C-alpha cells in the first residue's frame, strides 16, 4: 500500500518499497524530493514535455476532425478505447498502491458536494433569472459535473504526476460517474418531464461500465502482487490513456453558434470553472488546513470543464441541447486557461 506523504512527493525508495515502479518521467517529475538541482531542472523539462504533449494532442485531435482525416465516429472510437482499455489499465496499474484513508474518502465526496451546491445555486438562479425549466436542468447536469476522466486524468498526469492518477480515478468513478448514473438521470427525467428508467437498468449500466468493474476488481485484488510482466503491461496501457483521451477531446471541439445563451453559459461556466472549485477549495483546503497532494488533486479535479457524458444525458432528455453543447464546447478550451491558474493557486498556497 502506498501512503502518500503530506509533501506530495514520493521518494524512489518509498515507491519501490510499495511495488510502485516509477518510470524516469515520474522520478524526474518528483525531482524536488531528490533535492538535487539537476534533477529539478530535468523534472521541469519533463513537465514541459508533458504540457507540450497535452497541447499537441488537443491540436492534433481538433485538426484530424476539421480536415476530415478521422472518420465521423472517430471521437467515439477513441473514447471507447479510453473507457474500455485506458481507464481499466490505470485502475489495475495504480489503484492497488493507494491507501484508502479519510483524505481519499473526502476526495470522493467532493464531486457530490459540488453537484449538490451547484444544483441549489442553479435552482435559485433559475428562479431569480426566470430561466426555463429545461435550462435549469441542463445547468444542474452540465454545470455541476466535471470531466474528471477524459480531461481530468490527463491533466493530473501532466500537472501532478502519474502516481496520483488513482485518486483522480476514484473521484471520477465513485464521484462523477456515480452521480451521473444514479442522481443525474432522475434529475434529467424530472426536468425533461420523462419517466426515469427502472432502478435495475441503472444498476446494470453501472456494473457493466468497464472502468467501474475494473476499479472494484483492482481494489479487491489490492493485496495480490501481480507478476512483473502484468504490472508492466498495465503501466504501458495506462500510459496510452492520456494522449488518446486528449486527442478524443480535441476531436470533439467545435464551438456552437447559438447566440442567445450567453447568460446561462456564463452562469454555468462561472460555477463550473471558478465558483464550484473555489467552494471546494474553501471547504477542503482552507478550513481543514490540509496541504496534501490528494486534496490538491481533489480541488483540481473539481475545476475541470463540464462532463461530455452529462451533455449527452441532457440532450437525451431534451434539456436545452444547444446550451449543453455550448457549455461543453466553450468550457473545454476555457479550462485550458483556468486549469494552470488553479494549479498555480493550489501549489502556491
Amino acid at each position, binding site marked *: 500500500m502506498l501512503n502518500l506523504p503530506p509533501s506530495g512527493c514520493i521518494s524512489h525508495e518509498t515507491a519501490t518499497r510499495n511495488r510502485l515502479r516509477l518510470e524516469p518521467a515520474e522520478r524526474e517529475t518528483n525531482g524536488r524530493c531528490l533535492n538535487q538541482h539537476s534533477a529539478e531542472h530535468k523534472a521541469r523539462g519533463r513537465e514541459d514535455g508533458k504540457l507540450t504533449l497535452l497541447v499537441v494532442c488537443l491540436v492534433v485531435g481538433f485538426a484530424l476532425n476539421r480536415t476530415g482525416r478521422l472518420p465521423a465516429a472517430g471521437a467515439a472510437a477513441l473514447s471507447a478505447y479510453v473507457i474500455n482499455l485506458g481507464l481499466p489499465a490505470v485502475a489495475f496499474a495504480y489503484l492497488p498502491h493507494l491507501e484508502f484513508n479519510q483524505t481519499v474518502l473526502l476526495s470522493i465526496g467532493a464531486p457530490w458536494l459540488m453537484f449538490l451546491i451547484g444544483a441549489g445555486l442553479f435552482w435559485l438562479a433559475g428562479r431569480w433569472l426566470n430561466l426555463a425549466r429545461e435550462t435549469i436542468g441542463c445547468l444542474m447536469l452540465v454545470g455541476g459535473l466535471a470531466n474528471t476522466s477524459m480531461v481530468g486524468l490527463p491533466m493530473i498526469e501532466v500537472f501532478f504526476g502519474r502516481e496520483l492518477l488513482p485518486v483522480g480515478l476514484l473521484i471520477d468513478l465513485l464521484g462523477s460517474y456515480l452521480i451521473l448514473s444514479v442522481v443525474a438521470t432522475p434529475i434529467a427525467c424530472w426536468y425533461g418531464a420523462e419517466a426515469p428508467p427502472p432502478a435495475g437498468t441503472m444498476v446494470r449500466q453501472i456494473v457493466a461500465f468497464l472502468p467501474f468493474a475494473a476499479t472494484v476488481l483492482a481494489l479487491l485484488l489490492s493485496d495480490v502482487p501481480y507478476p512483473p510482466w502484468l504490472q508492466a503491461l498495465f503501466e504501458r496501457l495506462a500510459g496510452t490513456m492520456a494522449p488518446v483521451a486528449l486527442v478524443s477531446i480535441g476531436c470533439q471541439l467545435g464551438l456552437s453558434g447559438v447566440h442567445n445563451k450567453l447568460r446561462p453559459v456564463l452562469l454555468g461556466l462561472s460555477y463550473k470553472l471558478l465558483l464550484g472549485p473555489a467552494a471546494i477549495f474553501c471547504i477542503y483546503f482552507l478550513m481543514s488546513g490540509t496541504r496534501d497532494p490528494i486534496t490538491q488533486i481533489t480541488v483540481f479535479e473539481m475545476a475541470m470543464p463540464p*462532463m461530455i457524458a452529462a451533455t*449527452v444525458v441532457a440532450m437525451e432528455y431534451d434539456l436545452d*441541447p444547444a446550451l449543453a*453543447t455550448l457549455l461543453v464546447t466553450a468550457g473545454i478550451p476555457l479550462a485550458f486557461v483556468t486549469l494552470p491558474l488553479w494549479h498555480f493557486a493550489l501549489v502556491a498556497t
Partner: protein
Amino acid sequence: MDSDKADLITTLHALTSRPEASEEALSLNHWQAEDWSRMLAESKPTVLHPGEMLFKRGDDNSDLFFLVAGSLEVSVPRSATGSLTPPVIVTPGSVVGELAFFDRAGRSASVWSRDRAVLLRLSRFAFRRLVDTAPSQACDLLLALARIIAARLRRAHGD
C-alpha cells in the same frame, strides 16, 4: 394554400435556383415554381426559436425538413462512449432528417436551431402521394436527396 406557406415555397425555390448554392442544397434548379408548390402542397411550416430542438437522436419520427430560413446545428451524441461530435451547420436550401425519411430507423443525430429557423415539414405519407401523382418529380427529389447524402458522406470521410 395559405400565403405564408406560398411565400416559403417561393423562397425555397429561389434558394435552390441560385448558381452559387452549396453542394448540400437541393439540386432542383430545373424545377419551376409550380413543381415546388405541388411537392410541398401538403407540407407544414415549422418555426424554431434560437436553440430550440427540432429532433433528437433516437426519435422515431421520419418526416423530412426543408430549411427555408435561419440555420441549424447537427450533432451526434453517443451515450455508450459519452462522446459528442462538434456541431455541423446546415444552411437554407438544404434538408435535415433525410436518413430516417428513408429507413425509418430513428433519428441518427440531434438537430437544433442556431437562430430563428423556418422549415417546411414533409411527411412520408405526403411523399407517397407525390409518387402517385407526379412520379418524375418524386424521382427528381430522391436524386436530389441522394446527392445531399453523398455530399455529407464524402465530408464525413474527409474527401
